[in-house]
């Protein structure tokens, strides 16, 4: 699936050795470098607390509002340093983030939520309307619930809403944080199909943090694996899928094939590349 990434493409987003500290004392990212090529799907993998969300927030500049800051390194988008920009400047440049844990506007209806996604757009109501229909066609469930306040919809519906909202800004790059969380299996596939579709048809680039490694690597052109705030491995999607360590620790496949969750034994198997 990922063979077409072989060609060398121009880098859209580059993180160069960044370090992030929360609250002046908690050091979370310890020198992360990665890059997202134009028109590529790049996956960011890693266990809980590895720093995936932090990395994405560093890019979209949402860290500041959580009392975190990038203390070292640079972040460049299209060759421009973007660290000092505001989140809305980034959105205007075509970078939008889908936040982990949904973050819908509770009191707004689903449709109003989607419309806020189009806040920065200047290309006219008709275009926006078209995209709204597109989002509804991706997620028919949202259309059914369009007049409900987002706060009263189910977890999955909120997740769809959050993704749909980002699509409404007709972005160039999407930072997707755990898009599959809480979605039913067929929807997970669908989401990734949408990603692929947007990527291929519209040339949208993606940086996605995902726990569902199997699916993510199947769609991603390139992947980085993060552990405790450091990149410990990277490679093409397909190559990572074949890596023995990745198989063992992220895919749950042992040499005998897929393990049953029931048979997992009571011992600690976690492997650390480095710490």
């Amino acid at each position: 699936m990922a063979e077409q990434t072989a060609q060398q493409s121009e880098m859209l987003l580059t993180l160069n050795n960044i370090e992030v500290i929360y609250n002046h004392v908690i050091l979370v990212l310890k020198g992360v470098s990665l890059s997202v090529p134009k028109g590529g799907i790049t996956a960011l993998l890693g266990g809980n607390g590895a720093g995936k969300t932090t990395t994405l927030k560093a890019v979209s500049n949402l860290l500041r509002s959580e009392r975190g800051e990038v203390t070292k390194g640079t972040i460049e988008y299209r060759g421009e340093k973007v660290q000092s920009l505001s989140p809305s400047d980034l959105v205007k440049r075509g970078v939008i983030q889908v936040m982990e844990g949904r973050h819908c506007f509770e009191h707004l209806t689903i449709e109003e939520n989607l419309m806020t996604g189009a806040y920065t757009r200047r290309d006219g109501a008709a275009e926006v309307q078209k995209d709204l229909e597109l989002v509804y066609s991706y997620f028919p469930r949202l259309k059914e619930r369009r007049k409900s306040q987002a706060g009263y919809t189910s977890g999955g519906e909120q997740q769809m809403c959050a993704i749909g909202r980002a699509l409404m800004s007709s972005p160039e790059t999407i930072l997707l944080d755990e898009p599959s969380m809480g979605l039913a299996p067929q929807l997970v596939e669908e989401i990734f199909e949408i990603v692929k579709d947007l990527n291929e048809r519209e040339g949208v680039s993606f940086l996605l943090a995902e726990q569902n490694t199997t699916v993510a690597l199947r769609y991603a052109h390139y992947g980085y694996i993060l552990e405790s705030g450091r990149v410990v491995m990277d490679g093409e999607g397909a190559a990572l899928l074949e890596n023995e360590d990745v198989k063992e620790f992220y895919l749950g496949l042992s040499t005998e094939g897929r393990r049953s969750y029931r048979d997992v034994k009571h011992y600690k198997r976690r492997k650390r590349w480095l710490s």
Partner: protein
Amino acid sequence: MIFFIETVISGLMAGVMYALVALGFVLIFKASGIFNFAQGVLALFAALTLTGIMDNFGLSAWIAIPLTLGVMVLLAILIERLVLQHLVNQEPIILFMATIGLAYVLEGIGDILWGSNVKVLDVGLPNGASDWMLDSFDIYVEKLEVAAAVTATILVIVLSIFSQYTRIGRALRAVADDHQAALSVGISLRTIWVIVWSIAGFVALVAGIMWGSKSGVQFSLSLIALKALPVLILGGFTSIPGAIVGGLIIGVGEKIAEIYLGEVMSALFSLDRNIFSAIENWFAYVLALGFLLFRPQGLFGERIIERV
């Protein structure tokens, strides 16, 4: 009977005056989830600036009002730059506290700039009781308050439309729900905040003009904020029309209570009727509280979302 009608009317009028102040609160709360304690001081500050400009430079109200408005916009920008910008994504109570700090600052600066003497504010609004009402119906209505009622109505209509149906309006409500998510979709909190605080400054100016014309411009003007609070919870923190409906209910309720409760109590329980005087203040709150027990979000407020 005439007297009862008169009581009701004066209650309505008082209510409108409260609503003018409440409106400022609602705007900011609705648009950013901030309970703006400084609203009263903002009204004082606006009125002080207006009189300051008029008296010191001998300008007419027509020039001074737009100038004051300019000052209020400038103030909004400063508030955003120096305060709010640094408090994105904080809990409501922290933002509330910051507005208290702001209230102190504005009070101090207002004093330093314009002094604490009483200033007479005359922008040409009609004053005194309406002779026509008094002569033909023997009902006493203040002309100033009629003007206030008209202004308030216009404000409410315009602001409701603005917040419900425009792109910016939607963004305002989004910010109130979730700062981070709003940032993430590209809503610039800074712009939004400057916009709402400017509008709130405008509303404060209107309130300042009305109250200032009524009782002179001086520190006490900032205390009218307290009168707006019961109105606010009754109408709902997030509802612009709620501010006016709440105002009317509170206004009428407290006037009727103040005038009649003593009589009723002395008739029913032979209690000293003098005890039941000066009850307006707490009565307004108790009345609002009564409504809240049935609708915890106020009459028109947004439902409080309770889910797990």
